[in-house]
């Protein structure tokens, strides 16, 4: 849980140093569906300093994947409404043309996708999938790109890279494929990497390897990273700051150590309770959060977590708690009845998770 290294961005402009690399302000992303508009991301603000890692945590359906795609601008070409601003290295990504965005994607900002089974093109050789961005953004010729690709594969820990370049994704194991995904994302030396559940589809031992690899590469290449996951355990040791999302909104944000020591929002507490601990005797049942996230077409009034919160009061169901600070500017949360060092200030009101 130690706060991580604070490395400095590769070649920052001197006057940019103090600014965050990424500043997201009031970002909202809504999908038009036949049943109505789904606000998957609803007024999210966050900032990421150079060289740091921010973990974005939430259950399925909390809007965290949409958030990462929306930050990048990588949304379906139609049926989507987006508002708010995303400032990256001083430039507003939401104001960019499609062409300008393409010059940023892959070169400055890259994304590591959730499922390496589906995120690699099954009918293209691995080599071609790595070299195409090298040739596009860095103007390399075929041979040069190929050498670089082999070097990249080697750096993500793939043995006999020359041979692997000729393989199709289906000929590689899951862990290997995720390494290829990472190699693709890092090919052009991006400043910001958005990793969307980079380890979800992999088994536990490989998960740790991949996360360690990401951390190591981040150090070597002075990258800034947003690590999106449903598993608070994944980011506990790897993020400098954690943003907890619920039903499209940020419900708590704090430096990692602070968050774990003093979670304010009952939802954060519930996520922590669902991390397996080595100290637990085997056979211990993990706490789960009863119910599921609300539908975003017609979200509940008041606090969106209230229907599942064991300590929800009448006020929670009628009016929505704003984000407010706890102690320092760095720790904000949205709750009418915050916890103190993980303990509730009001009695249990219904049978949610008894902690």
């Amino acid at each position, binding site marked *: 849980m130690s706060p991580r290294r604070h490395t400095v961005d590769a070649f920052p402009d001197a006057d940019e140093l103090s600014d965050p690399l990424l500043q997201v302000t009031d970002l909202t992303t809504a999908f*038009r569906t*036949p049943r109505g508009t789904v606000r998957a991301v609803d007024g999210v603000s966050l900032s990421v300093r150079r060289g740091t890692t921010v973990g974005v945590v*939430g259950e*399925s359906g909390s809007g*965290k*994947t949409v958030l990462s795609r929306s930050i990048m601008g990588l949304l*379906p070409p139609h049926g989507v409404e987006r508002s708010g601003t995303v400032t990256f290295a001083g430039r507003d990504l939401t104001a960019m043309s499609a062409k300008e965005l393409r010059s940023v994607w892959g070169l400055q900002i890259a994304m590591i996708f959730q499922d390496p089974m589906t995120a690699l093109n099954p009918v293209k050789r691995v080599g071609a999938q790595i070299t195409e961005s090298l040739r596009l953004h860095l103007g390399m010729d075929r041979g040069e790109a190929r050498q670089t690709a082999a070097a990249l594969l080697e750096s993500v820990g793939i043995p006999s890279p020359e041979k692997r370049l000729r393989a199709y994704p289906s000929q590689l194991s899951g862990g290997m494929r995720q390494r290829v995904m990472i190699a693709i994302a890092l090919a052009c030396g991006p400043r910001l990497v958005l990793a969307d559940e980079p380890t979800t589809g992999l088994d536990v031992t490989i998960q740790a390897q991949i996360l360690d690899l990401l951390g190591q590469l981040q150090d070597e290449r002075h990258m800034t990273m947003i690590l999106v996951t449903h598993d608070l355990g994944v980011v506990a040791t790897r993020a400098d700051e954690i943003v907890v999302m619920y039903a499209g909104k940020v419900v708590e944000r704090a430096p990692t150590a602070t968050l774990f020591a003093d979670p304010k929002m009952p939802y954060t507490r519930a996520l922590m309770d669902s991390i397996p601990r080595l100290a637990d005797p085997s056979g211990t049942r993990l706490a789960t959060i009863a119910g599921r996230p609300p539908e975003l077409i017609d979200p509940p009034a008041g606090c969106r977590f209230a229907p599942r919160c064991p300590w929800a009061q009448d006020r929670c169901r009628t009016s929505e708690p704003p984000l407010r600070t706890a102690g320092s500017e760095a720790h904000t949360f949205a709750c009418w009845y915050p916890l103190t060092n993980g303990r509730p200030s009001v009695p249990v009101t219904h049978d949610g998770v008894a902690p």
Partner: protein
Amino acid sequence: MPDDRDLAATGAATDLLADAAPGDAAISEEAVALAASGPSRRPLGVVFWLAIAWVGVVILAAVFANVLPLARPDFQHYGAINAGPSLHHLLGTDDLGRDLLSRLVFGARVSLVVGFGSITIGMIFGGSAGLVSGYLGGLWDATMNATAFVILAFPQILAVIAITAFWGASLWKITLIIGVASIPLLFRVVRASTLAFANREFVVAARALGASPLRIIFREILPNVLPAAMSFAMIGVAVAIILEGSLAFLGLSVPLPTPSWGNMIAEGSTNGNLQQNVYIMLWPTISMFLLLLSINLIGDRLRQRFDIRESMV
């Protein structure tokens, strides 16, 4: 018509909404609900009823051809050779002075009898064989399926031409030949949809209750397979009509002077007729186009209604 309207947009959205963890039940339910609210619930629409109306008109005309106040289709009006449309001859006459409306109405009989008749034959034999074979499974089913596969490797048009060549062509022979030729395809299609139901809970439950195979096939499976079978049958009808029309065009179907839309198109398409009287070719062409369009449309809407994927064909 556009069968996956909205799906692309919805699909992209549900994909993204299905945040994270693969196999998350809650989310996939939502995705399913979102997708289901899409195409299948739409009303059948005006176009569908227009199509039904056209097929209905053609059927009525063909059935009541003898009763309708029409000239005989082969009567030659020597005073009106290649006459344009007039009150006397609503659609005009051909190069032999025969009334085109009358020929069109009588010609409809051939297309309809062959189209619907042959597919009825195909469905009775191929369909029921598919139903039984798909339900029973086993070696018998495998043999039947392989046989159908081999027969399907033989181009249908060639078989039909070769048989008519030696057996001769009459309305009933052509219907029978095309009907028999359609058996393997309808067998495979009905068998495939039967397989989809053969091991569903309600069938297994019926079997556990001691229902006889025949009862299960007809009471449990048939009602479920029927919508799909009907929409395949509509495709089959269109294919059979096209096949007969092609044969007629080649002069290998019902012999002259019996009018059929196919042989009328062929007669109207000779160089001389195209230059002097395009109507001979025009009316049966338009009628045939509208008939095929209507049948395709009916089949397509049925398929949407019952949510049958085209891949099953």
